[in-house]
């Protein structure tokens, strides 16, 4: 019964999207983190999606193959009174781009909803298939 594989496929996508949401949440939470004494602030993280075969041709799920770190330099703001300011009076914040993360979050949640709907539709189809030939 090939339709049962849809639950594996959509399930893998939902799991991958929820991991993406998790990463977005941790990025947003750390948007205003200041660099520690070692001078390196929190770096924005991104998930990398990869297609993974799930039995049969054309049946492809998704996995998160890796989580990468964004290596662009963090925001530097001149604030000599800040306790974490360096010798020149600059404070280094994390390199999280809040607008980008919000867009990422909306995209992830839409994809999540899409896959949930695929599962719901498939479930109702399979329930109707189970009742095949039972009259009226």
């Amino acid at each position, binding site marked *: 019964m090939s339709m049962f594989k849809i639950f594996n496929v959509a399930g893998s996508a939902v799991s991958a999207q929820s991991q993406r949401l998790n990463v977005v949440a941790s990025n947003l939470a750390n948007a205003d983190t200041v660099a520690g004494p070692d001078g390196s602030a929190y770096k924005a993280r991104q998930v990398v999606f990869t297609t993974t075969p799930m039995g049969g041709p*054309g049946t492809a799920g998704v996995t998160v193959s890796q989580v990468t770190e964004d290596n662009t330099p963090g925001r530097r703001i001149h604030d000599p009174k800040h306790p974490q300011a360096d010798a020149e009076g600059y404070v280094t914040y994390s390199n999280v781009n809040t607008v980008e993360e919000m867009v990422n979050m909306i995209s992830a949640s839409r994809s999540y909803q*899409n896959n949930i709907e695929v599962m719901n539709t498939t479930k109702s189809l399979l329930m109707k298939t189970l009742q095949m030939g039972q*009259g009226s």
Partner: protein
Amino acid sequence: MLNRLTDALNFQTEALKLRSERQRLIASNIANADTPGYVSRDFDFATALKTATGQASSGPSGLSAPKLAMNAANPAHLQRNGQLAGSGATTDLAYAPTTQSNLDRNTVDMDRERANFADNTVRYEATLRFINSSVRTLNTAITGQ
């Protein structure tokens, strides 16, 4: 005698199998909507159904070679179309055309996939109803009412 009774059902069974296969394909496309480099897949339902039910393909002369499945003793044997014998796939998968290309080379068009998914769902249910009504007809004939 019995195959005459089930002839009408066989056709709908093949249609139902292909519909479920297409449902799985579209679900894979929707799942991979955000995967870089993923290429959207689909197949032509009418051609696939003709192949599956053994009807002659509409060639230019009408003299096309009969589509015979090769004998496979092991599910790992390859069929003529290069697919595994045990996979149950009798259809050639095609790549869906791109309408708006993405920078990450992903060709899933979510609007089209959602439309295809809804369309396929309705047609799957329709096929189910055809089967149900055939069964009801047979039941009526057997009980003689």
